């Protein structure tokens, strides 16, 4: 589950992005992408392409691993066999997605250990949305439906990107996320059409999650030469605003169908522009949360640190002296 990469943009100009690259190699690389061909691990690639992809795939992987925690909050309390099995399978899938994505990032030259260290130290980012608490069972339903829905919008776009290993991982991830989406929707529908208590639970969860969901795709992109280059290289596949619009288009009607409301009186589709209008979410809050001051940042990282620490003796015992690290093939 993942929204969008927090791409670093230091206002660099296009020239400086590729200034030190061999123009012949660069032209061949860009021609390959323009022709719709994929880039594979040992291909020549611009330094900036590698750097942005590592950052993006790594953030995505971290988001899956940290994303297992808010829903994991309810894993021991899911009501009934059907929900219990499905939630376990869903959280398991998130861990599985993390595994696939770390492998894809490793093919670009960063080891899983380095990525994990950067996660635990707070150096790498992950999707902001997972720094919010899952207060009730209904939160886990809203996450499974709407956060996964948002993630699918992003991941489907990225699966058409230019880097082969990332695309392959995303193809499998998207297939599994469609189970998550169905499960999440089923779960929300049962609550929304259930008893008054159940309905109140899900409305309450929706109210609390709406702003994080609006934050999910990130602020409007500053259209810079940098952004344009990343889009030409098929690293960034759609603008944040476009993805947010796609999401709203697909899911707001489904939410309203259930008679649920969203906590934004300005939210409506403008029939003339065919675009959704809404109250701009508070981007200052978004920035604060990214920088470690969200309600659960500290706990999320502490839990990952604990998991790594608890597993240390097991891993150390099995590590062979002859082991030699080679990045996965593809």
């Amino acid at each position, binding site marked *: 589950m993942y929204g969008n990469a927090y791409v670093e943009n230091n206002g660099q100009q296009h020239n400086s992005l590729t200034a030190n690259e061999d123009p012949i190699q660069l032209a061949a690389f860009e021609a390959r992408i323009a022709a719709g061909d994929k880039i594979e691990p*040992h291909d020549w690639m611009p330094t900036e392409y590698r750097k942005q992809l590592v950052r993006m795939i790594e953030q995505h992987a971290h988001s899956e691993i940290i994303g297992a925690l808010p829903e994991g909050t309810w894993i021991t309390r899911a009501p009934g066999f059907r929900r219990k099995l499905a939630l376990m399978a869903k959280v398991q899938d998130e861990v599985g997605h993390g595994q696939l994505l770390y492998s894809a990032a490793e093919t670009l030259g960063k080891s899983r250990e380095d990525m*994990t260290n950067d996660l635990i130290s707070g150096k790498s980012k992950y999707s902001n949305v997972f720094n919010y608490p899952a207060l009730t069972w209904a939160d886990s339903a809203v996450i499974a439906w709407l956060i996964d829905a948002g993630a699918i919008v992003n991941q489907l776009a990225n699966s058409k990107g230019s880097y082969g290993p990332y695309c392959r991982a995303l193809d499998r991830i998207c297939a599994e996320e469609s189970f998550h989406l169905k499960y999440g929707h089923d779960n929300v529908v049962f609550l929304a059409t259930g008893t008054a208590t159940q309905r109140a639970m899900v409305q309450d969860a929706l109210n609390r999650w709406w702003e994080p969901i609006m934050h999910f795709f990130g602020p409007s992109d500053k259209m810079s030469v940098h952004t344009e280059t990343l889009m030409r290289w098929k690293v960034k596949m759609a603008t944040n605003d476009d993805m947010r619009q796609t999401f709203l288009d697909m899911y707001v009607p489904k939410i309203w169908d259930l008679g649920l409301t969203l906590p934004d009186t300005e939210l409506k589709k403008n029939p003339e522009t065919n675009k959704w209008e809404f109250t701009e979410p508070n981007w200052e809050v978004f920035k604060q949360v990214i920088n470690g001051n969200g309600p659960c940042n500290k706990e999320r990282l502490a839990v*990952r640190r604990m998991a790594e620490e608890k597993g240390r003796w097991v891993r150390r015992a099995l590590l062979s002296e002859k082991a030699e690290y080679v990045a996965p093939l593809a």
Partner: protein
Amino acid sequence: MNIKSLDPRVTRANIDENAQDGVLNPLDHFQTYEVFEQKKRGTHHIHVGSVHAPSPELAMIFAKEQYTRRGQCVNLWVVKTQDVFVTEYTDADIFETTASKKYREPDAYKVIDRINAYKERTKTKSTI
């Protein structure tokens, strides 16, 4: 202070909120194995991804759940990544000439016209 979490599992783990341990060293997550699955008998094994594992036996145990927990599979191979010898994409041109080697292809051999022409010729002769 230990974390009191909404997640009862986390509360039970007695995690010190300010602990700073947990830094990983190289190879802490082991080396990697490439995974090949065969969906049904009679088909080829196909590469599906990789796993980190300390031994081939555990690589197989891990691959089984990571790659075949949905859908059909009858056989798995795991191979240490470092033991796979690969070609470079920069050498992809070594494959390029294959297409022009028509003499390797069945459709380079079309003799039906020749046979028909021969038949035509011999038929004419016999009627004389």
